[in-house]
């Protein structure tokens, strides 16, 4: 039996009937056609589906949409105008932080959260904090460089995500 939920997605008020078994990821991807949120495992390990739920990163593949009634969701699409995310994306571009791009949306969400919480993180800290986002292409080196560079730029501009 479907359940009605209302929630905010990227600033828009959404009201939909969902099957209880629908994950947030499938809700975003199939129902709202927001396909930046990728699925790499559907059991919480790879981080490709990472989105912001009420201001904190969460795995969209193992969150049930029905349980998120009233929540505020933000996906990579919802950060199009975000200044800090703009800096992070540019850093990923400059520092070659992506290859096939499949892990990238999840990486960006986690990176932004990391920079917000630990703007001064060093290489080891960045690697630890990003260890829940798997990338099969880059070997992470470019990603670590990108995050370091973005954090440096944001802090020198006095900007915090």
């Amino acid at each position, binding site marked *: 039996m479907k359940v009605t939920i209302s929630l905010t997605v990227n600033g828009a008020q959404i009201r939909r009937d969902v099957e209880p078994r629908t994950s947030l990821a499938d809700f975003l991807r199939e129902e709202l056609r927001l396909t930046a949120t990728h699925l790499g495992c559907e*059991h919480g390990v790879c981080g490709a589906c990472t989105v912001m*739920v009420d201001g904190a990163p969460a795995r969209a*593949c193992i969150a049930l949409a029905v349980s998120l009634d009233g929540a505020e969701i933000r996906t990579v699409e919802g950060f199009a105008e975000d200044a800090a995310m703009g800096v992070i994306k540019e850093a990923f571009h400059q520092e070659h932080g992506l290859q096939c791009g499949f892990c990238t949306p999840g990486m960006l969400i986690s990176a932004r959260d990391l920079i917000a919480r630990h703007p001064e993180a060093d290489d080891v800290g960045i690697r*630890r904090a990003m260890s*829940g986002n798997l990338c099969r292409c880059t070997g992470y080196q470019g990603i670590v460089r990108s995050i370091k560079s973005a954090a440096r730029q944001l802090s020198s501009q006095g900007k915090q995500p």
Partner: protein
Amino acid sequence: MKPAPFSYHRATSVDDAVAALTQGAGMARILAGGQSLVPMLNLRLAPLDTVIDISRVDSLRQAHDDADSVRYGALVTHAAFEDRRVPDGSNGLMPFVAGQIAYRAVRNRGTIGGSLALADPAADWLTTLVALEGKLLIAGPEGRRAVAAADFVIGSYLTDLAENEMIEAVVVPRRSATERWGHYKVARKTGEYAESMAIALVDKARNYARLVVGATDGAPLVLEQAAQAFLDGRTDDALRVVIRDELLAAGREFSAARLTMHTTVAMRGLKGAAAK
């Protein structure tokens, strides 16, 4: 990898959740953070027909600081411990452990109650709560009861929880200010479940030591002889033998490699506490 259909009940209170569990007659399960349950649902490994979502029961998110213990609602998340958004009576052990569980995105949603209820032998909270001599407050149709963490876990994924009971809170006694903790976890990768983990609590002032080894294919093992041998000031080699023998005596059929690993980890847990 999508779940089989189920119906959904959003619990309004603990009593409401317990009533729904009772009504579900074994085919209903609590959804807390969903970080273990939903993967199992996605993999179709958790047969159930009703999910009882307790995430809106606000009382379960609270933590209370009492004189000789701290009480955490079942829904306190790993991240809340990590960020010290809840009081700590463990000299920093609980925030430290929390920060080692999985990854931030999982810690933001995963809860202490869910972790304990699952009783994965390799999970971090289980070993930690046994080490800290914590208690679980359990709500059922007949009311509330308390059970020591050490008695709560019966084996791998097996607990003392009846099918219509749920964890309401976890109570952790305040540890003495002179106590030091040691923690050692080995996992194949960052954020993975432990292959072996040990927590040692040492209070030299009180001549007290406690050593617990987790990820042992069953309930965490409390190594009392080893703790005593440590207090007795036995040499490292002798201590290693005591640990090994005590692990063997637990009858868990460890392979030689596992036994070495657990022995090392237990030693390092003790050393870590002693070094502080």
